[in-house]
Structures are given as structure tokens and as C-alpha cells.
């Protein structure tokens, strides 16, 4: 039996949650039938969140669980990777504070890219740990079924050998030419076939075949599965597949449809995260990824799971939601509609790549500096110390996890900002560094000088002229 498995995990679901009733109400004039789907809420990204930023949040939380073995590889799985040619995994690893001397890989192409990447990590013989992070922020045409069903989120899973919380028992995979949906290069929206056909011919035939093969090679009975993680937006599919396989009805893990929606490539791992939260030593977890074929993975919880604390469990990130009823906000944040932002929005946000590379550890990894002469911690790192003027090189000081507070602030309604008003002000780190920052997810009534902040990695500017966007750190109320 493998000594490899999952050593820690963490999730990120955007705080913004759209009430589905608001989506249905907006479309009632044309699609009154959507009212039936208008229950619960779905997660959606703020204008400055994408699969990269969500992944960084999940990986940082995942790495909060201490482990001596180093991470030597990071794989990023997504069908909505922000960059087609500019490795997303490299950026995620750097922003998450991982060493630069690691392997990295982008996986994509189907909703099972995350389970496939996870299998590769678990089958690896490398001595170092691998972090697999999956995230999706899928577009859906207004008034489509997908607009109701899709959510957004990321999950990071760290794999390694030795002290694991869930031991890897094995996996099985298959390929298939079954096209339940597709999205071609350069296209924004999925094109989906009839759900009833997908249910009957794919979920009830292809999935059970692969799962049965895995159970057989692992020597495990279906009835001994305690957690069955099968992501699908089609109602009733998971219980039907469980019934067909002989998996207990109470083993079917919640697909989070009511409070989050389908997080795409991340969803198998999101449900795995839910299972890990509940699992007791010895319990078996079955995870299925489906898309142009099928992956099935089997885990067994170890005694280490009892004391394990996730850096951000699925339940905790799920509970951090802020319900929104402004449907046009969701449309605007996802780029489905373009508001008239006025002439200030015409500002060119071209990035100087030479400058970016010189400062990339400051911009992406938020590394400040400490003066060798006077010990002042500062950001950015300029040619001379902000306090004593020494030109000696500054020692690197990471700021992303440093505690900080509001020193000054305002809510600017004049500046061009896709989520007005722009909250910004001076952020005072406890270690002495100070810098002017954008502040997000602010609750205006509780915003005051002295409020505790934490740092989040977000999109800073979108360059619509060159189809590029740049990232930087922002401050958000702690907790």
C-alpha cells in the first residue's frame, strides 16, 4: 500500500454570493421558468478575483499547516486559467511564498483536470511534497441554466509521504468521446447538451464503470465507502449513481449547490475537502472527476485527521459569504456588461515588463526590506533606506502574512474603480513597514483607524488594450 496521501488542504470561495432569486427576477420578463431554479445563492468573483487569485488564497491557507517536508512542485488545474501562454502555476507559487526552485505545471482542458493532476501528484515518487490547486471562474450567458448553477472557488491539496491525514488507496481513469459540454479556444461560454442524456448515458454508465474498476483493484466494497464525492449540477445524479454502485445513500457528499454553486475544475476537490472535514480514522473517501472521461480516486482517513486543522476549511470559507441581490453587479464584475465608467476609465494601464521583472518579488511575493544600518522595515525597497538613507542592500522581509492596521483611509467615489467607492489608505504593519494600499471587502460602518487588516493577492489593473492584467496585494479586514 502507498505511504502517500493528503497532508493538508484548504479552500477559498469568494465572499460575494448572489441570491439566485435576484437572477431569476431580472430575467422574469423573458424566462419566467428560471424562477424554479431561483433558490439559494451562488458564489461569484469580485472584479479583481480570478482563478489565480483564488488559488493563491487557497494555497496560502493550505501552507499554514506546518510540515517539515518541503514543497517541490505545484500544479494548477483550471478551465479558466487567466493566461493561455504565461504560466499561471508559476505566478501562484511565487505569490504563495513558495521557493522558486520548484517544478510547476498548468493543467486544463476538462473539468477533471484537477483529479488528473491530483493522481499524478499521488503517483509521483518525488521526495518533496506537491501542492495541487484547482480553481475555476466560469462565464455563463445571462439567463442560461449555467448562470444559476455555476459558482466560483479554489481548493489546494498538499500531497506527500509519511504523516498524511488521508492515505491514497488508488485510482482509475478512462477516456471518452462523450460531449456533455464544450468550450472552444477563445470562446467565453460553454455549449451544453441535454441534461437527461448526460445523466443516463454518462453519469449512470461511464462513471459507474470506472468506479467499479477502482473498487475491484483496491479490494474495497462499495458499501464501505463513507464519502462519495461526485460533482454534478444535474439534480439527483449523485444519489442515483451511488444507488447503482451500491454506495450507501448517506455517503453522498453535499454538492454545495444551495450555497456556492459548481466551482468547475475545483469541485471534486471542494467536495473532497468537505469529506476530509467530517472523516474519522479508517473511513474511505471516493472522489470522482468527470469530463471527456472519468477519474476516480480512493482515500482512507488516518488517525492524524482527528487533530488536523485546515488553514481554511470548506465550511469556514462557505460561511464567510456576503449575500448580494444586485444582479447587475455580478454581470459587471464578470464582464458580461460594460458600464459607462466615464473618461477616467480611459487611463492606459500598460505594464512595463522590464520594470515588473526588476520588482517582481515585491509585486508578486510582497517582499519588503529591512535596512542593515537602522533596522527599519519598509516597502517598496528603494535605492536608499526610507529612514536613514543608507544605500546598503535591504534584507528581504515578506509582508503578506504580517499583521497590519489601518493608519488612514477614505472611500473615493471620483477615482475610476470597478467596484466603487475605492477604499484605500495607509496600511501600517506591526513590523514598522507602511504603504498606501487598496482595501477590499470593507464594511464601511466598522472601518476606522486602527482596524486590523490582512493581505490578499488580487488583480490590480486590467489592461483592456493589450488583454493583460496585473496583480498586486490589497488589504482586507482581518478575520
Amino acid at each position, binding site marked *: 500500500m502507498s505511504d502517500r496521501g493528503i497532508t493538508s488542504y484548504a479552500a477559498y470561495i469568494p465572499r460575494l454570493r448572489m441570491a439566485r432569486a435576484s437572477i431569476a427576477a431580472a430575467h422574469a420578463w423573458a424566462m419566467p421558468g428560471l424562477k424554479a431554479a431561483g433558490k439559494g445563492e451562488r458564489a461569484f468573483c469580485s472584479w479583481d478575483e480570478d482563478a489565480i487569485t483564488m488559488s493563491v488564497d487557497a494555497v496560502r491557507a493550505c501552507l499554514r499547516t506546518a510540515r517539515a517536508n518541503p514543497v517541490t512542485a505545484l500544479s494548477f488545474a483550471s478551465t479558466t486559467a487567466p493566461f493561455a501562454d504565461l504560466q499561471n502555476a508559476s505566478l501562484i507559487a511565487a505569490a504563495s511564498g513558495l521557493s522558486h526552485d520548484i517544478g510547476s505545471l498548468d493543467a486544463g482542458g476538462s473539468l477533471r483536470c484537477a483529479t488528473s493532476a491530483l493522481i499524478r501528484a499521488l503517483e509521483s515518487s518525488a521526495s518533496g511534497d506537491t501542492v495541487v490547486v484547482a480553481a475555476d471562474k466560469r462565464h455563463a450567458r445571462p439567463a442560461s441554466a449555467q448562470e444559476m448553477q455555476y459558482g466560483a472557488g479554489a481548493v489546494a491539496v498538499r500531497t506527500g509521504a509519511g504523516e498524511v491525514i488521508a492515505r491514497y488507496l488508488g485510482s482509475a481513469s478512462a477516456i471518452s468521446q462523450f460531449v456533455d459540454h464544450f468550450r472552444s479556444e477563445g470562446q467565453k461560454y460553454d455549449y451544453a447538451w441535454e441534461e437527461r442524456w448526460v445523466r443516463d448515458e454518462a453519469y449512470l454508465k461511464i462513471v459507474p464503470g470506472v468506479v467499479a474498476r477502482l473498487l475491484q483493484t483496491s479490494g474495497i466494497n462499495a458499501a464501505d465507502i463513507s464519502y462519495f464525492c461526485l460533482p454534478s449540477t444535474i439534480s439527483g445524479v449523485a444519489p442515483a449513481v451511488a444507488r447503482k454502485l451500491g454506495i450507501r445513500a448517506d455517503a453522498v457528499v453535499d454538492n454545495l449547490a444551495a450555497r456556492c454553486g459548481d466551482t468547475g475544475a475545483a469541485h471534486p476537490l471542494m467536495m473532497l475537502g468537505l469529506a476530509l472535514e467530517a472523516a474519522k480514522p479508517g473511513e474511505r473517501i471516493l472522489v470522482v472527476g468527470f469530463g471527456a472521461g472519468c477519474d476516480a480516486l480512493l482515500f482512507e482517513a488516518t488517525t492524524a485527521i482527528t487533530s488536523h486543522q485546515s488553514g481554511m476549511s470548506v465550511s469556514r470559507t462557505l460561511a464567510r459569504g456576503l449575500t448580494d441581490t444586485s444582479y447587475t453587479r455580478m454581470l459587471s464584475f464578470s464582464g458580461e456588461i460594460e458600464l459607462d465608467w466615464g473618461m477616467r476609465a480611459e487611463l492606459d494601464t500598460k505594464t512595463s515588463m522590464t520594470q515588473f521583472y526588476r520588482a517582481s518579488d515585491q509585486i508578486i511575493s510582497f517582499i519588503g526590506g529591512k535596512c542593515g544600518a537602522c533596522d527599519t522595515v519598509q516597502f517598496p525597497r528603494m535605492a536608499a533606506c526610507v529612514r536613514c538613507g543608507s544605500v546598503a542592500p535591504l534584507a528581504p522581509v515578506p509582508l503578506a502574512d504580517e499583521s497590519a492596521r489601518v493608519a488612514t483611509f*477614505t472611500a473615493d467615489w471620483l477615482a475610476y474603480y470597478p467596484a466603487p467607492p475605492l477604499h484605500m489608505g495607509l496600511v501600517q504593519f506591526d513590523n514598522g*513597514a507602511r504603504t498606501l494600499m487598496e482595501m477590499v471587502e470593507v464594511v464601511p460602518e466598522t472601518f476606522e483607524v486602527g482596524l486590523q487588516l490582512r493581505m490578499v493577492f488580487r488583480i490590480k489593473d486590467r489592461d483592456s488594450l493589450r488583454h493583460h492584467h496585473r496583480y498586486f496585494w490589497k488589504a482586507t479586514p482581518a478575520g
Partner: protein
Amino acid sequence: MATGIKDKVAIIGMGCSKFGERWDCGTEHLLNEAFQEALADAGIEKSRIEAGWYGSAVDRVNVGTSAIPATTALRMGGIPFTRVENMCATGTEALRGAAYAVAAGVVDIALAIGAEKLKDTGYGGLPTGTRGTLNDLILPVSTAPGGFAQLAAGYRARYGVSREDLKMAMARVSWKSHQNGARNPKAHLQKEVDLDTILNAPLIADPLGVYDCCGVSDGAACAIVTTPEIARSLGKHDIVTIKALQLSLSAGLEIGTADWDGSYVANTRIAAAKAYAEAGVRNPRKEISMMEVHDCFSITELVTMEDLGISPDGGAVKDIMDGFFDADGGLPCQIDGGLKCFGHPIGATGLRMAYENYLQLLGRAGKRQLKDPVLGLSHNLGGVPYNCLAAIAILGRL
């Protein structure tokens, strides 16, 4: 041993265009409007001017870089002419360049002129632009009101002033400037506004409402300077001289260290201390007769009263509410309407302030004339409070 600028330079002519939305003209017209008035005031031929300093801050909507646009507009080729830019202190910087040249004895007569044509952008407020390749990667997209509004957060936190009390004092600042601007035919805004309107205006950058912010304007202002001796030889009897010209710039402490609490502007304090020393002012609250300060926002004027040492720290709210800075108060401030109502064409502003003090000192301020002013102070703030520069000029009679 340097002895400072005091009484080494006389202003023999000043001019100021009508400020406002000058849809009718471009920068070259504004420059000539101010220049012709100054030339007539000085009573000299244009050919007597030996060097010029031209202030222009936002070249991308103005006339471009270099001083060639100014020499072309004024048809003043063949003499040294320099473009200066130091944000909102640009006009004062032009004056400093011309005054230093005269004080150095390098030229007899020099020109300082500043202009800005801001209403050609298509929208209100200052135009947006890049802040350099590194800053663009780090700094939030901010506006001037967004920068200065943070003074309110810092001030409230330090002095425990309620949001409502501070908002009222800020409104009182703008109310007073509208009262003054209504008596100035060259002002951009010549209308009185009541306190309720000011208090209930839409927010621009919390807690600044529309009436807490100056607008931007088109305009130009200009000064012709020489030595007091030459001024006398030109037949001038009532001579206004420069008593102090000071400038202080940030080097990163406010934005980059915990030293600054956001409740004041450090550079104003530094420049003021040096200016008072240069002019020989010991008690500014008593000795300064009038002030034109950089009221880009009401909260800026409020903290400036403390930064200039006029009000004690934490005492500006009381002085403002007591009417100490009103036209009939203990130390009239923004007699011409200030940036708030006279307007704020950036490159011209410092010279516009000097223009009002000059008129007042010579008893030529018409309906706004104060009784026997002795010293007039003008103050500019460029940038945002945590990364700024402050300029101070003090004028008086010789």
C-alpha cells in the same frame, strides 16, 4: 553666510487672467491676458525683461513640455526662459526662479508666469495619468480628493473629533470662501452657498462632499520682479517686496514609516518655520495680516491653520467656527475666494495667491480690501499629504 530673500526682490507688476471655464481661449490667450496686465502695471517695455520662468504642471492637456510654448505665446524669444513644474506649487516655483535670479544679481528684471488649461480634458477634476512604471504597479489608482480625504481620518483619530463636528468645520471653511469669492469679479465661482447645501452635497471622497473640493479652472497669473533699487528708479514709491520664499518636499517618511499619524502636513510645518525665520516673523497669528492657503479641499485648509502655527494643534475647528478666518475675522484667509472659488489652474495658482496679497498690500483689492495689511502669506501644497511638497511665500511692503 546666506541671508535669505527678504527685501532683496521687489514685485513691480502683476497680472491675473479671469479664472474659470475659459471655453473661449487656449493657454496662449491666458498667458497674454495675465502678462499684458502685469506689463502695464510695471510700466516697462517688454524688452526690459531679461529672463523668464514659466510654470505649467499638466503638460498632457496643456501646451506640452519646455518653455517654448510660453516664449511663443508671449513672443519673447532670445532670452533665457525655463519651464518649471512642482505640482500645485508650480506657480510659486516660477516666482522663486525669477526672484532668485534677481537676488543673485544675474538679471535686473525677470518674469514669473504660470498657466494651466484644464478644461480641455472633457471631464471635471484633475486629469489622470501614469505615476511612473514602479508606482503604477504598486499604488492604488487615487485622486487628489482621495489623497487629502485621509487627513480627516487621521485628524479625527488623533483629536477625537466626531465625524459631524469635523464635517461642520469643513463646511464652514467652504462657506467662508464662497462668501469671499462672491466679491471677486475674476473668480471662477462667484456665488454664496449656504451651510446646508454644503453639508448635504454628494460625496466625492469620504468625508469630502462636492463643496469640500475646489474645482479645476483655466487661468494664468504673472509677476515681474526686480530689485528695490531698480523699482525706485522706475518711479515706484509703494514697493512690495518678497519677505520669504520657502519649499519643503517629502522623502518618504510619511508614506513609508509610522512617524506620521495623518493629522497634519509635515512639509507645511517645515516650510512655515523656515519662512517665518526668513521673514523675521515671531508670532504668525498676530503678525500675518492675511493668508491665501492651499484650500484644494476644506480639510486641507483646516489642518493648514495648525501647520502654519496660526491655530494651536487641535484648535483649528474652534478658530474656524469662531469666524477667525473670515474676511472680518482676526486673520482673513482666502480673501479672493481661494482655490475653492477663485479656481485652481495649477501652474497659475501660486502666482494668483501672490497677486491677491500684492493687491491688498497696495490697497487695490476693491470690495475685498482689508484695512492696512502688513504681511500676506501664500501657501501651496503639491501632491497628497503623505507624499507632498509645500511652498510658502510671504510678501510685505518695503
